[in-house]
């Protein structure tokens, strides 16, 4: 298992380097100049040149790139052009909100998706199965820019139970977390069901039943354990995507997370902040997926053997 984790960590470096390089290149291809956005349209050319020099934007792209990498390795992501503050501090201020929303959505999705998927598989063809499949399809299909306002209208405006938007206590977390969780749960229900159905048809489940294991044990211990491996892998990908910032949900619910910050940084052509956000997102993505791989290894030790 340690070998798996080490191998993923070693792969992290070239992955991050690739991501940062691509973002750096594409960002500089975008029309728009951060200095002009900062100083205004009629800033004196001397001031524009001075600030460009101060920010290092007058140097060749390759030099800017190497400089950025050298600083990033030392943990210095530079200064945000728009916020006039260290990039690390700006991101650190927003990251807890993203973590909070991602964690709440994941927990909600898991709590509802796995039991429903198991129930649908165990009662295959029943009304419960059909209802679970329709509900999961709906969860996948409903876009968050539509679902979010719909939930607001129902639970905040009509019933008055929950706040409309913003970040505060648990109450503020419910609607954005449910909006994100529904889409994720839809995928997980279908995956759990399909994976468990496949596992239930395996010889080892039949053998367990033949040896007298009760149905709940054959399903819950033998089949489900194997069926959860692909679920954990997909969960890792989805969790990574959530940590990348659910831009639409964050915008709809005025949630001050990383996704909104990234959009704001792109609009202001705030190169250091965009690069910092992408780096943070990339690291989160790889960390979560490494954790998911390790968890899959715990569930099915054969995966760890394969990694050696």
């Amino acid at each position, binding site marked *: 298992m340690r070998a798996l984790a080490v191998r993923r960590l070693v792969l992290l470096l070239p992955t991050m380097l690739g991501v940062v390089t691509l973002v750096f290149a594409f960002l500089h291809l975008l029309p728009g100049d951060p200095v002009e956005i900062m100083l205004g349209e009629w800033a004196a050319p001397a001031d524009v040149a001075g600030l460009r020099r101060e920010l290092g934007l007058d140097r060749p792209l390759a030099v800017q790139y190497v400089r950025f990498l050298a600083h990033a390795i030392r943990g210095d992501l530079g200064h945000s052009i728009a916020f006039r503050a260290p990039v690390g501090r700006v991101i650190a201020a927003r990251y807890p909100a993203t973590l909070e929303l991602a964690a709440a959505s994941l927990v909600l999705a898991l709590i509802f998706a796995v039991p429903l998927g198991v129930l649908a598989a165990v009662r295959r063809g029943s009304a419960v199965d059909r209802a679970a499949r329709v509900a999961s399809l709906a969860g996948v299909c409903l876009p968050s820019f539509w679902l979010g306002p719909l939930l607001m209208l129902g639970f*905040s405006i009509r019933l008055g139970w929950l706040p409309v938007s913003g970040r505060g206590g648990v109450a503020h977390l419910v609607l954005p977390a449910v909006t994100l969780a529904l889409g994720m749960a839809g995928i997980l229900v279908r995956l759990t069901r399909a994976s468990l159905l496949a596992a239930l048809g395996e010889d080892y489940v039949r053998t367990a039943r033949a040896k007298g294991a009760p149905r709940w044990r054959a399903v819950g211990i033998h089949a489900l354990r194997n069926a959860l491996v692909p679920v954990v892998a997909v969960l890792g990908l989805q969790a990574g995507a959530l940590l990348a910032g659910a831009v639409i949900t964050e915008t709809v619910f005025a949630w001050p997370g990383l996704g909104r910050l990234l959009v704001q940084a792109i609009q202001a052509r705030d190169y250091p902040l965009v690069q910092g956000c992408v780096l943070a997102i990339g690291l989160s993505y790889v960390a979560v997926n490494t954790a998911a791989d390790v968890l899959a290894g715990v569930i099915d030790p054969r995966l760890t053997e394969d990694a050696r």
Partner: protein
Amino acid sequence: MLVGLAGGCAEAPPPAGALVVAFDSDPQSLDPRFQTDANGARLADLLYVGLTRAGADGQRAPELARTWEMPDRRTFVFHLRSDFRFPDGTAVTATDVRATYEAVRDPALASPKRTALAVLSAVEAPDPTTVVMHLTEPFAPFLDATGLGILPADRARERGEVTTGAGPFQLIAAERGERLVLAPNPRYPDGVPKLHPLIVRIVPDEMVRVLELRRGGVHLVEDAPEPEIGTWLGTIPTLLVRRSPGTSFVYLALNLRDPRLADRRVREAITLALDREGLVRFVLGETARPATGLLAPEHWAYARLRSPRHDPGRARRLLDRAGYRAPRPGAPRFRLVYKTSSQPVRRRLAEAVQTELGAVGIAVDVRVYEWGTLYADVRSGNFELASLAWVGITDPDLYYLAFHSTMMPPAGYNRGAYVSRVTDRLTTAGRQTFAPARRRAIYARVQRRLAHDLPVVPLWWEDRVVVHTRRLHGFEPSPSGDLRGLAAAWLD
């Protein structure tokens, strides 16, 4: 599931006496030395005092400066009030004014306000209530730059964000991207504000701002909602929708580098093809006034001009005369690319313009861009038609920046590359003339000239639409959209 979750987590209401205002985006900076965006300016009005502030008619009104005079054409002497205090009780003095202006003039600070102070050669503080500013040349619009918020002298040169001012409110907490919490400045001399606290929430989605208003999570929104939503909000008994004439000017920018648009007959044909009354009625739900030019009728330098009429027949004849005839019946005379931002109202405008220009034989290809890309294209002259707006117009010297032939980007705002020796001469004279009556006469001639030359097609002046709770009293919305009126407001 939601029922269960909701049962366990009741929403904490805002504190009693708190007013919650929603902004559509986070101000980029709260520091008056660096603030450039509209929401930053709104907050600066609450947190800081400047020597002067813009009045409703665009003239400078006294604020920290009680009075001012000009002993010669290159010197302004400001006499300060002595009763303004920073929240810690320290008096705002001429030393603070000098330090703030000198910090902004320092190239090392890289302040976007530095260019506006380019004509300032020295600032003196001979005594605590007198500030003397020397200019390099006579420059009538200089007073427009004296709205700069004053910081304490010992903090004016800090490179980080400084938010200590002597305005009616003080910043007590800032969770960027989420909310800003302001409390009254207990030393504010013109009456300590009664709103405590004043919370500014960042709610990017327009529909969510509206739902928050409906629910009571937000008490005031200044960004005009879509016309039909504004009508719906007016039916909610707890809310008050207030509409007043605004100063923001929306126009069609024309690129005169294009030989077709360089022909005045084509520009006039485009103007005549547009039914601006109809556009205001159907695109904006009558929340605007058809415009004759940059300055709204409330502005001190506004000149009354005849509004361009809607006359498609004459537009066709002008295009024929200019040599742009359709190659065959039903085919367009020529095509123009129209660039616009992704704002819904701007997109609707683009579709309407496309239809109306199509009716006189000009085919329009609409391209919708993210703001940064549109801005970069307009700046670099990479456009034919574009829908743009001027907000926060104060001094008519904007005519120089936007239409003088030397003010093409990157020097200024003359994005359409308009060149007129008459306009150059008049706008130069306008910035060197101090007598108000003579200045007004000069700008009247500028406005008539531009109405003839049509370097841009004036569309409308947007109304200010403010929606707030009926519990709010004593608040007078300003035509420019600033929030200073909240200093005198209270909640019942």
